[in-house]
């Protein structure tokens, strides 16, 4: 399966600032996704990162808060904007290999703490 590198691994940020998380895959993948996992909760899909076009956001998530870039088939970024303590979470990049019904594989995650 693809090797997914995500950085930073963790960060502590002040409220009102923004953080950009990077996700690099060692091979071209069709589907890239960004998930959030709040403390004690299940993984929640934020958006699907589309190559060459705007990301597709899930209900409850908006582009102004979570802008996403996907300039090519191996790289994506997620920005958490104007952060508040409620944004403290693990953020995960994931990819699917493109075959129908193929499983998701996850990056190593970014643990974000907003103070």
């Amino acid at each position: 399966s693809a090797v997914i590198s995500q950085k930073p691994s963790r960060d502590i940020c002040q409220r009102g600032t923004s953080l950009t998380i990077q996700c690099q895959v060692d091979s071209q993948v069709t589907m890239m996704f960004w998930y959030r996992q709040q403390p004690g909760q299940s993984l929640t899909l934020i958006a699907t990162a589309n190559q060459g076009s705007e990301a597709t956001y899930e209900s409850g998530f908006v582009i102004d808060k979570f802008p996403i870039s996907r300039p090519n088939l191996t790289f994506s970024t997620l920005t958490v904007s104007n952060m508040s303590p409620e944004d403290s979470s693990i953020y995960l990049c994931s990819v699917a290999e493109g075959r129908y019904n193929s499983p998701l594989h996850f990056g190593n995650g970014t643990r974000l703490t907003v103070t």
Partner: protein
Amino acid sequence: EDKVVQSPLSLVVHEGDTVTLNCSYEVTNFRSLLWYKQEKKAPTFLFMLTSSGIEKKSGRLSSILDKKELFSILNITATQTGDSAVYLCAIGGADGLTFGKGTHLIIQP
């Protein structure tokens, strides 16, 4: 809306014990059921199940799906301290992939 319920939420056992983790679901247009192991941050893929009654096995871990009763179990035999993790179940359906809250498994030496 697709739904995944895992039980128990947490479980503490001794090394060498056998554990069974449960995942029940409601889904529109079932595609697959997946199990992941999450240590620290990154979930690691374990199994993908699409057919009822066919056991998938990897070492001491095995899993089976019952599409009639809408559940799956993950078995771990001869548990080791390295099995301590959160085990996530996810269902693939019309809503995409929906995750349960996980079972937090602690193996005591």
